[in-house]
């Protein structure tokens, strides 16, 4: 539990104070908050997960002067995630899994699970933050940022989600 809160705190601070301000090569932003939205345990029809995502988004909005953008994005992502995970992993297996990490799902299932969610996240951000959604710049932003974030999330899991941490996460 302690690790859980510590991890959340670090990722949130990293998002708000560092990575929200940086646009790498004009097309890439790193969103560590996606790690939280992707990896935490699935619970069927959990209202708490919806409130949690709305709250995270709203907190980011406060520090980002972007009233509603992250709140709406995080909410839709979690709703979609709760639906998508059942399609990819199946209800029975999903309830046995504690965290949706690559260690638990395997690389293929993890990729199928994570990529659409990440793409949707950046598409929504782009839609809410940009006037010209259907532009090459936006498309490049969505594709490149999604790809880099997937690699980042994968690396993060291999580096920080070893089996000891996973046990404590439970």
């Amino acid at each position: 539990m302690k690790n859980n809160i510590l991890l959340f705190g670090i990722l949130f601070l990293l998002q708000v104070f560092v990575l929200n301000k940086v646009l790498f090569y004009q097309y890439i932003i790193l969103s560590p908050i996606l790690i939280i939205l992707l990896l935490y345990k699935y619970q069927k029809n959990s209202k708490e997960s919806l409130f949690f995502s709305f709250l995270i988004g709203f907190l980011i909005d406060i520090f980002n002067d972007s009233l509603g953008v992250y709140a709406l994005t995080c909410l839709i992502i979690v709703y979609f995630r709760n639906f998508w995970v059942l399609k990819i992993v199946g209800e029975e297996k999903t309830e046995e899994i504690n965290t949706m990490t690559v260690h638990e799902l395997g690389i293929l299932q993890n990729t199928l699970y994570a990529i659409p969610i990440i793409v949707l996240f950046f598409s929504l951000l782009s839609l809410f933050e940009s006037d010209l959604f259907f532009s090459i710049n936006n498309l490049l932003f969505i594709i490149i940022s999604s790809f880099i974030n997937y690699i980042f999330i994968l690396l993060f899991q291999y580096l920080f989600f070893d089996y000891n941490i996973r046990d404590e996460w439970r």
Partner: protein
Amino acid sequence: MRNLIKLISLYNYSITFYLLLLISSYFLITENFVLKTKYFNSSNYIAGSVFSAQSRVSEYFLLKKKNTLLEAENKKLKESLTNIRSINNFIENKQYNFIDAEIINNSVRKKNNYITINKGTKHGIKKGMGVISNLGIVGKVKYVSDNFATIISLLNNSYFVSSLVKNSNTLSSVNWNGNDPKILNLLYVPKHIDIQKGDSVITSSFDTIFPKGILIGEIVSINKDTNSNFYDIDIMSSQNFYNLSMVYVVDNILYQEKKALESDTDEK
């Protein structure tokens, strides 16, 4: 009633989702001034306090860079002062005061970017004041709390600045299209005006918030093949929004007088 409660408890997950969706969508699309003011003031208070602390730490590591910038600015100011001294009536006609402020939060990657500074009503900042730096214009004060103010950045889709093309004195407007933070659009320059790449674009002072002649940028591309009577012009912003740290809020002493006179004229 029992059926209603049963229905709600059956679909409470979806109901919660749609309820939160409605709230966040309202936040996103609302133009409600009171809500936005309250939001920005509260977020200024929370985020401003935290960003101030963060800024104090990061500031220490940027001292050398800041020093170099200040030296350059000092040199520029001395040169300007020399020129200005030759105008005898400058002091009598002094129209602008400048309040220095430090940037504690800034964004460049959204379509509507805002900047937060560490000065507020306590320091004389008022809504609508212009904000400049030593490189050019930065934006306009949008919301003010006691100790902080939110600036609507030049990198904001909804912000237009009254401008002049320096060589031809053509009145125009500058706006950002939301793509490259270094490139701005120069609007409403008629096609019969002769303009060249490299021409400087400066503030016009018609909007009463900026002094005349503050640099906005330099023309980098001119497209004549448009269906309208105006050019499609891109300018390279003189301002580097990526490493902004110090700004000056412009207080136009004659603002109220000019506005009152203009509104009287409009009424008649």
